């Protein structure tokens, strides 16, 4: 990681409430006119569920997200739903993931999901979960929307996914 101390300092600043509030006020998000809506049509216990995180999680033996591009990395990583904490790591320079490094459930709740499945609250997992990094700005937005998002959606449909749980960084 380039300029690691500076990036750590910047991330630490976000723990100060007014710094974060100022960032939120100045941030210009993509806007939508319509609200997508797919009703839930069967009990959760019979639903196939997928997890998606923007926390920069990936398999240790997979390529990390590109931290050299200041505009972010709009690609995605595929994570087998059978993966365990020891299989995973985080590459994401734009939030403090010290705690998530020690407990991946903060950004990809794999153990929490399994516990709920054992309780019979929700149905089986899809074969794969998906991960992105949540710092992607304008030059890469078309790629994110037109390629990455569509590929993930197609993959989820192919796995018969009924419900998707999205977790931010």
């Amino acid at each position: 990681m380039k300029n690691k101390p500076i990036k750590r300092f910047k991330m630490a600043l976000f723990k100060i409430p007014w710094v974060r509030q100022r960032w939120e006020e100045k941030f210009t998000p993509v806007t939508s006119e319509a609200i997508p809506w797919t009703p839930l049509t069967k009990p959760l216990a019979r639903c196939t569920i997928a997890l998606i995180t923007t926390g920069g999680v990936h398999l240790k033996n997979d390529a990390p997200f590109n931290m050299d591009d200041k505009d972010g990395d709009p690609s995605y990583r595929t994570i087998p739903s059978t993966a365990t904490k020891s299989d995973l790591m985080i590459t994401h320079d734009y939030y403090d993931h010290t705690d998530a490094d020690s407990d991946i459930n903060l950004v990809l709740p794999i153990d929490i999901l399994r516990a709920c499945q054992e309780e019979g609250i929700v149905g089986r997992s899809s074969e794969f979960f998906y991960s992105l990094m949540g710092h992607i700005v304008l030059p890469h937005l078309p790629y994110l929307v037109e390629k990455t998002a569509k590929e993930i959606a197609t993959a989820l449909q192919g796995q018969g996914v009924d419900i998707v749980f999205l977790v931010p960084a």
Partner: protein
Amino acid sequence: MSTVGISLVRTITVAIKPPRTYFLRYPFGHALGEAGNRPQQTTIFKDCLNLLETARVPGIILESPYRWRGQRFA
């Protein structure tokens, strides 16, 4: 596919208009709560599933009642 998501920044969620959102005033990197706090993480996860099951209005943003610090979870 029906979706539910966690948000840590309400203004962005309002602009993007996702179908069902569970909003928490938690720090970045802590969407499910504190490291190792299984009761907290499980409660938030189940709240989100409950929102998925009960939401009838597109664009709903449900504000979590849980504080970042000093909240007890069973």
